């Protein structure tokens, strides 16, 4: 099945694109996609604890099962509590 990926902010700049499509096996979860992404981009692996995931514009955890045509967004740390 095919998943649409979205990258924002620092992640978008790092990957030099704002979205991708990815073919994943049936039964794939968010974690599956993350593993595929970090295999292609090993430099992203240390970000795992800082990143959040959203499917269909709702926060989910890594165990969330994906459906065909899902939109999976990688959410870097948002603009943050400490600044203002």
């Amino acid at each position, binding site marked *: 099945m095919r998943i649409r990926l979205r990258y924002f902010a620092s992640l978008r700049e790092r990957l030099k694109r704002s979205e991708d499509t990815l073919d994943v096996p049936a039964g794939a979860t968010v974690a599956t996609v993350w593993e595929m992404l970090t295999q292609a981009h090993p430099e992203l692996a240390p970000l795992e604890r800082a990143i959040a995931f959203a499917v269909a514009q709702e926060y989910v955890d890594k165990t969330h099962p994906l459906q065909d045509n899902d939109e999976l967004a990688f959410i870097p740390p*948002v603009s943050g509590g400490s600044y203002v």
Partner: protein
Amino acid sequence: MSDSHARILCTITDHPIDMQVLTEFVADPAAGAMATFVGMTRNTNEGRQVVRLEYECYPGMAEKEMGKIAEQVLTRWPVQKIAMMHRLGRVDIGEASVAIAVSSGHRHAAFEACHYAINQLKETVPIWKKELYEGGELWIGSQTGTAGAFQRVQEENRA
């Protein structure tokens, strides 16, 4: 008070924030108190001379997450109305990037709800802020804790 949608305004905009839009929305003859918050670009941050900020969001999800916060506020406090607005793109020194207005019968609820709303917004709404400062740029929120791995400072010697 049953229709929460008539009591909530959540907007993301590319234009300068007009506080009057928010305060007029929350005006209510049953409201004795209004608390507002405005977040603005300031000229320094952690010792850096800030030139401007630039905001981007996850369109759709950002509005939805703002709406959830507003619904929480109406559930938790005896609040009449709440308006939340966030600006995207370039925000210069002194300009507002985010504004919240809350009206309620009494002042304590207005203060607490407004403070809660901005704290939550900065925790959960997918909006990102890039600081452009003298000598570089930095995605804010990514430079501490586990998020430190995100840090990406482009040291540009402009001299």
